């Protein structure tokens, strides 16, 4: 396994060399110690027969009685093949739709994702994560880090950005390691210059914004700028309601204005903060696209009367006011970018490189904290599990004593 991991790292290193030449291969991802599952495997396990557990669960569901979270966690712990992963998915779904859905434990989700990664069912894990309403998968930070890391190692940046989107929807950008990993995934995805639909742009923009707000350096500011620009584009095209519905975003209009405010803050601040050049280029491209789109709209208005009506359904008067402000935004953006260049606050390193530098500096320290936290959490989970097993034993003894 170590040999295959090394090979993967070499392959990834070859890809990295196209972006930045001088950084070492393995340091910019989570280290091997972090992704190692020794601590997890070392905990005490109860070998149970999966068929028996499945039978008990089916019978309890038929009788409309609640299934305990302990049964489900035992089922997931004892998965030993890919087929059983599919069966476990079914039982997670059933548990979520039972009266005990509140009591789904953290360690159950953690072990589910670990098992998925172990048996190569990563797409299953992503599927349950995307439909978190139906499956109840709300992983904790460590689990998110593992998942993002596995996707980054493979180089599948699209799925990695999907996972980052889920982190954003659950507002779990608390640990610095999560922030670094997600910014890395997003940066790499954007660097591949994909064709983005409006909803993808919205998700990317929201993740960049919420992640960037947590970081106080030039990387965070560039992320905030780009995020605000994306959200401003969606706001311009579809109205503010399309922006914040279903996302933890603020409902105030004027996201493009917020982007320009970030630039103003950088220009006015006295510290070292800079904005990276490629983000500024990206934002100027975006604004130009929007301008040309609005020009074609106004010229084609006379011929398409019906489509106008549909658009007016989506857009309020306030939204139309925002649209009218677009030329103003474009001119202000040009002013501010020239001002920033004159002040020397434009960094020529790309977004990707900024992330890599930050990762080199901070990832080790963040990882150490995370691993200690994880060990404490493992112990707490063990204690909770033993308590549950104890309670189950006592309940069984009580039931046995009752007929006497």
């Amino acid at each position: 396994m170590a040999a295959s991991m090394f090979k993967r790292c070499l392959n990834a290193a070859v890809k990295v060399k196209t972006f930045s030449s001088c950084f070492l291969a393995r340091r910019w991802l989570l280290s091997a110690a972090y992704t190692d599952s020794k601590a997890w495997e070392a905990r005490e396990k109860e070998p149970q027969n999966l068929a028996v557990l499945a039978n008990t669960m089916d019978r309890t569901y038929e009788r409309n009685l609640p299934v305990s979270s302990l049964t489900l966690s035992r089922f997931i712990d004892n998965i030993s093949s890919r087929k059983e992963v599919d069966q476990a998915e079914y039982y997670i779904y059933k548990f979520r739709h039972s009266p005990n859905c509140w009591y789904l434990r953290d360690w159950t989700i953690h072990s589910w994702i670990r098992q998925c990664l172990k048996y190569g069912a990563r797409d299953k894990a992503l599927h349950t994560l995307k439909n978190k309403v139906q499956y109840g998968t709300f992983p904790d930070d460590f689990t998110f880090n593992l998942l993002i890391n596995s996707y980054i190692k493979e180089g599948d940046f699209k799925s990695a950005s999907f996972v980052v989107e889920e982190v954003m929807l659950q507002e779990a950008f608390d640990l610095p390691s999560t922030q670094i990993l997600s910014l890395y995934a997003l940066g790499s995805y954007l660097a591949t210059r994909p064709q983005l639909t409006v909803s993808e742009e919205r998700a990317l923009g929201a993740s960049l914004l919420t992640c960037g707000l947590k970081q106080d350096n030039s990387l965070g500011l560039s992320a905030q700028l780009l995020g605000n620009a994306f959200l401003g584009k969606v706001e311009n095209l579809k109205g503010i309601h399309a922006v914040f519905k279903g996302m933890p975003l603020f409902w105030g209009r004027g996201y493009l204005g917020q982007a320009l405010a970030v630039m103003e803050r950088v220009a006015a601040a006295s510290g070292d903060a800079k904005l990276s050049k490629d983000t500024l280029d990206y934002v100027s491209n975006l604004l130009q696209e929007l301008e040309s789109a609005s020009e074609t709209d106004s010229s084609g208005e006379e011929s398409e009367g019906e489509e106008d009506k549909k658009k007016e359904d989506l857009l309020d008067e306030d939204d139309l006011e925002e649209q009218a402000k677009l030329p103003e935004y474009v001119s202000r953006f040009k002013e501010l970018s020239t001002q920033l260049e004159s002040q020397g606050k434009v960094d020529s390193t790309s977004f990707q490189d900024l992330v890599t530098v930050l990762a080199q500096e901070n990832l080790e320290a963040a990882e150490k904290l995370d691993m200690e936290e994880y060990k404490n959490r493992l112990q707490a989970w063990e204690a909770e599990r033993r308590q549950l097993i104890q309670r189950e034993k006592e309940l069984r003894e009580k039931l046995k004593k009752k007929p006497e």
Partner: protein
Amino acid sequence: MAKKKKLRLIAEMTRKIRAYQELKSRPRESQKYALDYETMTRPLTGKRLPVLAWQDVRRESRLFSLLAGLRLFGVGRLFTRKSWLEDHSEPSYWQITKVKVDYTAENMDHGQAWGILTYKGKVESEVKEVDKVMYHDWRLIPKHMEQQIKEFEPLPEPPVRYVPYPPLLRAMLLAQQKKAVGGSAMTEEPALPLQRNVIFSKDYFRRQEEERQGKAGTAV
């Protein structure tokens, strides 16, 4: 006395069984508040929603649609209502403490929630049931805005103004006071406070209902 009333035990039992079955077959939250978005009718009762609500129903979401996608069903998070945002300039929000989801709903879309209300900046002290959970009016306050919204301090209330009574009423009051005191001691001018003490509020009626239910017990 008339003839003795017959002991109709079977009728009594039937009545109890019928009441129990009625209790058991009450429609669940997901069935009561399900909505057909094309015709804006509730399938259970067949009633249509008021026209002014249609735009909101299409654009906004219910509280539980937001809660279903959050960790621990959003316990400890803050939620506002769009109508509050429009009507009041001071922030009003609910902080959720307890959630009971209706697990029969397909998207865990319905249920009951309890929390602490902050209305127009004034934080209340008790946990109450969240009102109007099924309205398509709710918005989640993102974590980076929570601090900003909680920091709001309401202005102190202006002191209560007092106003003299109308002349006839004033004369009546003074006469009453003179009679009570029983002499010509100089009494102070009666003043009418310009403040409305609401006795019959929603809380009052809810408490009455609860007391009545506590005394009567259940139907079965």
